[in-house]
């Protein structure tokens, strides 16, 4: 069966500090990978998605970047955090291919920027 991991689970960082969140998927190959942010108020905002190694699409211009160094690894980064980067970050995966396959979500990382 497939599992998706995210770490850290919680993070408190000062404004201006760097950020690195990691997401890994097990039990599948060539997945599509996604990063979402959920700010207070519950809405889910798609930040990045990737259909393959080194292939990143950005949905929202912002202070964040993403990378996919390996097939089942997806990293969310920032060089300098802003207060507005606080939120709940969710990674998700889906099977690659045509059609709208189900996205399966990780446990999330709760980020607080002070």
């Amino acid at each position, binding site marked *: 069966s497939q599992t998706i991991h995210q770490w850290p689970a919680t993070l408190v960082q000062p404004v201006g500090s760097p950020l690195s969140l990691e997401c890994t998927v097990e039990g599948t190959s060539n997945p*599509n990978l996604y990063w979402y942010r959920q700010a207070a108020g519950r809405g889910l905002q798609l930040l990045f998605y990737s259909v393959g190694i080194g292939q990143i699409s950005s949905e929202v211009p912002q202070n964040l970047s993403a990378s996919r160094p390996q097939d089942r690894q997806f990293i969310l980064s920032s060089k300098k955090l802003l207060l507005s980067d606080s939120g709940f970050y*969710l990674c998700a995966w889906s099977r690659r291919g045509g059609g709208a396959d189900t996205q399966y979500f990780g446990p999330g990382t709760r980020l607080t920027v002070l």
Partner: protein
Amino acid sequence: AQKVTQAQTEISVVEKEDVTLDCVYETRDTTYYLFWYKQPPSGELVFLIRRNSFDEQNEISGRYSWNFQKSTSSFNFTITASQVVDSAVYFCALSSRSNTGNQFYFGTGTSLTVIP
């Protein structure tokens, strides 16, 4: 344009009551997919159901049932005999084959509180 509307922001029910969560969607695609997810207080989104646009049969899974009506562009979710463990935020989502990278369009969620 693709859009999902969950007009109910918050709902409170007493345990054992039935509750229906509304979802209305907009799309110009003829082939599309609808989803429901549950987000308990722990935060992780849990997949509940996937429905394609060609299958309008209602589905029942235990206390959960889904009513898909293309005529009204709705995909409503009913919990029968609600329990405290059903307290969560529920999201409806839409996707289609035309979406690059399998992008989902999520509604803003409905927060359900079941009072014991």
